[in-house]
């Protein structure tokens, strides 16, 4: 059975001056899946998310979401249409409490039009509990530690009631235990019916939660497919770890 395509890019391209950060990327995201987006540093992963979500103007190509061409839309309209994201470098609203931070998502996001600020503030308790921050509900965002700031990012995005969620390195800087917890959270979010694109360097997490992986290198598609296959693809390993490592890796495998 053909799965429903939620988001699709056609030859999405982004140039900075003469530099091609993203070059003719065609990507399909199916409704309900968890897709992994990986690639070495500077491969253009975040730029790719930025042009989809309207944070950066696209140079050429098309972005289609739920059958609507959203190319060139301002970020806030895309957000209201049902795409949410977290930021690699966390972007909390420091002057607000946790609850207000999350409530902003609830009042401006996908279903925000119908909510008053008060309703939004009441609505978000559940989400705050979901990410495990109930005790910190009335703390100011500038008093939180990094793991909680990452969760706050997640809660803010969730409060927007998105259909598609981009998670940009939510696990970077977390310890093993925290990563486990975060993976569990991602699965739980997906279980709520939210399609997810995960950008991650933590391979364990990619293998653990994604069904499919898309690899970017120098702004171009390098490979896509099931996580295990893709990660054993020599081209991917080479791109990630360099020629020398590939040789060593295969030597080790042979030795084993």
């Amino acid at each position, binding site marked *: 059975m053909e799965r429903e395509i939620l988001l699709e890019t056609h030859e999405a391209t982004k140039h900075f001056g003469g530099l091609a950060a993203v070059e003719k990327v065609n990507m399909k995201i199916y409704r309900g899946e968890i897709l992994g987006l990986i690639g070495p540093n500077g491969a253009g992963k975040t730029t790719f998310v930025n042009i989809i*979500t309207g944070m950066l103007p696209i140079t050429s190509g098309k972005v289609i979401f739920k059958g609507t061409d959203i190319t060139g839309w301002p970020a806030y309209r895309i957000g209201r249409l049902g795409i949410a994201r977290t930021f690699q470098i966390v972007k909390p609203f420091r002057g607000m409490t946790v609850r207000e931070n999350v409530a902003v998502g609830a009042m401006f996001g996908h279903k925000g039009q119908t909510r008053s600020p008060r309703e939004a503030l009441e609505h978000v308790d559940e989400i705050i509990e979901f990410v495990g921050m109930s005790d910190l509900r009335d703390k100011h965002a500038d008093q939180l530690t990094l793991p909680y700031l990452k969760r706050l990012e997640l809660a803010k995005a969730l409060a927007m009631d998105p259909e598609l969620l981009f998670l940009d390195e939510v696990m970077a800087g977390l310890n093993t235990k925290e990563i486990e917890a975060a993976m569990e959270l991602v699965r739980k979010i997906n279980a709520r019916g939210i399609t997810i694109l995960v950008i991650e360097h933590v391979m364990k997490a990619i293998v653990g939660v994604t069904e499919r992986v898309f690899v970017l290198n120098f702004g171009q598609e390098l490979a896509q497919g099931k996580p295990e296959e893709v990660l054993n693809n020599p081209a991917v390993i080479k791109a990630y770890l360099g020629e020398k490592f590939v040789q060593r890796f295969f030597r080790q495998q042979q030795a084993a």
Partner: protein
Amino acid sequence: MSDREKKKAPLQYSLFDGLFQGRQGVLLGLFTLFLIFLAIFPFLSFASGFWLNTLTLILLLAAMAIGWNFIGGYTGYAAFGNVAFFGFGAYGTGLSMTKLGLSFFPSLLIGALAAMLFAIVMGLPILRLKGHYFAIATVAIATAMGEIADSWTSFTGGAAGITLPFFDPIEWSGQFFYYMSLLLAVGGLLLTWFILNRKMGYSWIAIREDEDAANMMGINTTWAKVMAFALSALMAGLAGGIYAYWKTFVLAEEVFKIEYTLQMILAAVLGGTGTIFGPFIGAFIYYILITLLVFFLPVGQLHATILGTIIILVMVFTPKGLMDFISGRKKISINSLLENIRTYRV
């Protein structure tokens, strides 16, 4: 936290920082007393024309500072040209009264709307600029507008200015303008409170804290910023219109003075930017300081030096303003004063 406690805990609005920190009762009480004092002030025995004049100036400054707080304090855009709106309000009111022959109130409305319109037209392009660039663009526009008003003799009267009729009856003009200003300042407080209870308030603060994130979360940042700019123009425009009729003349060099921008910023900063009452209280602190320096202390011509030194000390030790101390969010101690330096020094 048990369920019961959760229910009991009131919704905490950080938006109302400075008030809802457990002493809102005391503060609101004191503030109400102060407002009552202001309301009956003209009937007190020591309320001479001079003090009425001074308080009118303070209230106009407070109104402008409250307006500046929308764009500078809540939205976080360092607007350094708000005096342009003051000037637009003054000229709009003055020209409507003299050229169109309208009475004061419709003229005031026209002046304020002109200021708002100008803010919208200017805001759309320049609110895309960030930081220093936005700041200087606003200074540049305000200065240029002042110069244009100053030399466009056929329309604005140029350097000869516009002469307005006196308020009639003239014996009550002091009281009239005092109450107009009081109304405007208190109206500004209510407007702030009203906005903070609306989505607009949340969008402003979200923009201040992180514009990209705000945009991404579905906030139409352009609209929110332009509204903040336009509302701050409304406050300054109304203040300008009242000022024009009060002074009975409009002169570019008076109503486009960059000092007014600085005064409103200083008032807001002294009190605390991004707080409801900060700009209002800051205006009083600032002006009383000035008045004491100019009129009552034997500092002679060095009062500007003392004022400058005070600003420097405030910037170094408490750039978040006094609201933090008044509200009890911070205690006054050596440590809290040095905290700023510890955070921001290199």
